[in-house]
């Protein structure tokens, strides 16, 4: 892709090496995560009637699938991409001692958690709901990885401050605003997670305290769990606003729309978590409704993004000779091998139409009662995190690898099809799971041993269509991923054709509005903190005052509580 060769910049070899490892390490782990994705659909559809396959148990594989794909891959990518954006746009070298410290914590933490999962000591899924107990290494590992990602962000702040001082009155580059909002949301969201693991789960899983307050742990988890999805989505939005218009051959329709989207997400990402807990006891319906209201508000920037992207692509298509009311859609570079990044971003945007609408269903208070914890949910979040987020992340990983190593992409013709095959797979997979979900098919269940086993007294004939579509779609997704992995590693091990450098795709704004309200992060951050206090202080106080009896730890394979410490 030679879109803007003049934009390539030389960077420090240390930083280059670190960004490369932060991309290669999670992509290598992703092979394991995706293998377990395929296994899930095969078990669920009843093609495997077993509790385990090749030494890995179903729920152990499910834990691995969630932790690797949704937590490890995403966090590593966001950090690597953040480094690239900050270094590229702000043009200053970073403190490498701090950077390597952050890197070491993230890798060590990930390896600790992975060891706990692979040895079967952390089969608690990526939401780790207590009182199912994992080995302390699992919680400690994840906490270290999170702290590592904080340190990466702290490393960018002085660079940002110095840039602001040197460029008074200039707008902060849009991509930098996006990355900073990403990590501010992450920092806010991971504080309740750290409180949950450090004060509740780690002491309890070691055996220092006998019981855990489950309703409190769940509220803290979802305080983190929903902003987490915006942490995934925000780097994707950075790519949409700053790269997609250029790839389409045009300009970003509105710079203001981009800034407002990021800041709006900063404001409303966090005070929404209770919409995951609508069906739970111990939280009053007043606060459930308040969170439903805020969740509707957080959908607005996604609509703004959809319209802005359509307008930007129209601008590009018309510049490429497109015409007519709808005829210009034909002029986009869908299969342009040299602009392959377009296909990764465009396919994700398409999937997100469905992912976004079903998200609104989930958040719609009483409608959630039909779908909560059914297979509808994995269908929805695969259309979001495994749609636009996954495709843009793997696309950008490949893009950065080629630029930083100076290597030519291998299998260009196959590569440009990866997102479309993935889209086909995910649409079929999700359709199956949506249908099953409306009929009550539970998520996170090894159904091959019961509901989809004709020999079982629990056999559920209604879920036949769902299981066929689910396994077919999942298999197609795996094929797309397999092609991607081949392209990725063939490119990585290929020959260097030029000097490696840092290069990003940069779109010019079409409307470059000068609106003061979106030029400073501070007032929006203050608003965000205020909303969090309003939305979370009362339900947290309610939960703490309710004096729920604590729960002892349990191993997932036995109904008898674990006895961890010596008896008192």
């Amino acid at each position, binding site marked *: 892709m030679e879109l803007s060769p003049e934009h390539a910049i030389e960077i420090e070899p240390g930083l280059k090496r670190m960004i490369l490892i932060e991309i290669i390490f999670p992509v290598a782990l992703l092979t394991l995560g995706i293998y377990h994705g395929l296994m899930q659909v095969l078990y669920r559809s009843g093609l495997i009637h077993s*509790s385990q396959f090749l030494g890995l148990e179903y729920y152990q594989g499910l834990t691995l699938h969630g932790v690797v794909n949704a937590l490890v891959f995403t966090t590593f990518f966001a950090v690597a991409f953040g480094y690239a954006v900050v270094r590229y746009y702000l043009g200053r070298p970073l403190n490498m001692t701090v950077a390597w410290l952050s890197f070491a914590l993230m890798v060590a933490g990930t390896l600790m958690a992975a060891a706990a999962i692979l040895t079967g000591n952390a089969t608690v*899924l990526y939401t780790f709901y207590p009182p*199912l107990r994992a080995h302390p290494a699992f919680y400690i590992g994840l906490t270290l990885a999170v702290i590592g990602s904080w340190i990466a962000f702290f490393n960018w702040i002085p660079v940002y401050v110095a840039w602001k001082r040197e460029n008074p009155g200039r707008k902060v580059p849009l991509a930098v605003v996006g990355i900073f909002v990403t990590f501010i949301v992450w920092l806010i969201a991971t504080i309740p997670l750290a409180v949950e693991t450090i004060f509740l789960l780690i002491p309890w899983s070691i055996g220092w305290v006998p019981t855990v307050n489950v309703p409190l742990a769940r509220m803290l988890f979802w305080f983190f769990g929903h902003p987490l999805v915006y942490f995934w989505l925000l780097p994707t939005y950075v790519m949409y606003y700053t790269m997609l218009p250029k790839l389409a051959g045009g300009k970003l329709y509105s710079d203001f729309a981009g800034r407002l989207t990021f800041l709006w997400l900063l404001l409303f990402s966090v005070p929404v978590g209770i919409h995951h807990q609508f069906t*739970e006891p111990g939280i009053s*319906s007043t606060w459930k409704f308040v969170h439903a209201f805020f969740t509707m508000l957080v959908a607005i920037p996604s609509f703004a993004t959809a319209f802005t992207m359509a307008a930007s692509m129209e601008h590009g298509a018309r510049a490429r000779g497109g015409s007519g009311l709808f005829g210009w859609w034909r002029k986009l570079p869908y299969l342009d091998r040299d602009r392959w990044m377009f296909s990764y971003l465009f396919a994700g945007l398409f999937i997100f139409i469905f992912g976004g609408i079903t998200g609104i269903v989930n958040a719609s208070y009483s409608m959630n009662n039909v779908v909560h914890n059914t297979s509808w949910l994995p269908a929805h979040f695969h259309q979001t995190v495994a749609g636009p987020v996954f495709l843009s992340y793997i696309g950008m990983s490949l893009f950065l690898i080629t630029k930083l190593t100076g290597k030519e992409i291998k299998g260009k013709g196959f590569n440009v099809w990866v997102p479309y095959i993935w889209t086909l797979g995910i649409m079929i997979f999700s359709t199956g799971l949506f249908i099953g979900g409306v009929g*009550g098919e539970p998520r996170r269940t090894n159904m091959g041993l019961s509901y989809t086993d004709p020999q079982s007294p629990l056999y559920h004939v209604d879920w036949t269509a769902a299981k066929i579509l689910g396994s077919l779609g999942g298999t197609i997704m795996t094929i797309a991923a397999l092609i991607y992995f081949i392209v990725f590693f063939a490119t990585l091990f290929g020959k260097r054709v030029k000097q490696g450098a840092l290069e990003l795709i940069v779109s010019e704004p079409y409307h470059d509005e000068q609106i003061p309200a979106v030029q400073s992060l501070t007032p929006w951050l203050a608003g965000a903190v205020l909303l969090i206090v309003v939305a979370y202080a009362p339900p947290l106080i309610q939960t703490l005052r*309710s004096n729920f009896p604590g729960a002892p730890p349990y191993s997932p394979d036995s109904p008898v509580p674990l006895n961890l410490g010596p008896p008192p």
Partner: protein
Amino acid sequence: MTSAGQLERRIIVISVAFAMTLFALAALAVNLYHVGLPTCLTDIKPFEKGELITHSPTHYELHYVARMWTFEPEDVTVPAGSIVDIYLSAADVTHGLILPGTDVNLMAVPGAVNYARVKFEKPRDYQVLCHEFCGTGHQTMATALHVVDMQTFRARRQAAAVPEPSDPGYQVIKMKACLACHSIDGKTRSGPTFKGLYGRSEKMTDGSVITVDDAYLRESIHEPKAKIVRGFQPVMPKPQITDADVDKIIDYLKTIK
């Protein structure tokens, strides 16, 4: 003449006003019609015994206890046309309860009690499922809920009511949570049923056939993964159990044919 900017502003104002009105109406509906979300029941102490309580022939209170990996009570029958108030408590880990075909969708959270009301209009057999991961036996955590006409209901009521066994072997089985996977009434759970097990010939996963006797039972309790009955998974954990308790279990199993 209206400029484009003014028009835009006007559209924004109208849209925001429209959205706020819709939300105000939604909030009003939630309060006036008690739109069905589980209510806050923080003041109720979690119960440990599941039961069906009759308030009137058409109004019942159903106390479900969710535990790894059964619901108590099992196989509940209620008459068509009745209102059932479901209360849900979790005895060990977090569970879920979904009743496909109705709006009932609840989380069972240790320490708290959940609630939903449902009206069953017509006779139908429902399946009650656990929809939250609760351990390796999660996929078989389900029970039936039968809605039958009033006549059938009355007839079944009289036939029912089996008291809990007082056998010391049963007490061990209950305390060691064997019932999570092994029923005593012939139902298939994650493990083979205890009913009629003693003396039965079972086919193993390796193809051999074993007649269940004292030696086999002793081995299977102490070394659960040594021999697995065909059709089941090697998922049973090793229990902490004394030889005296094992003897009690074996004696009890001999009595349930």
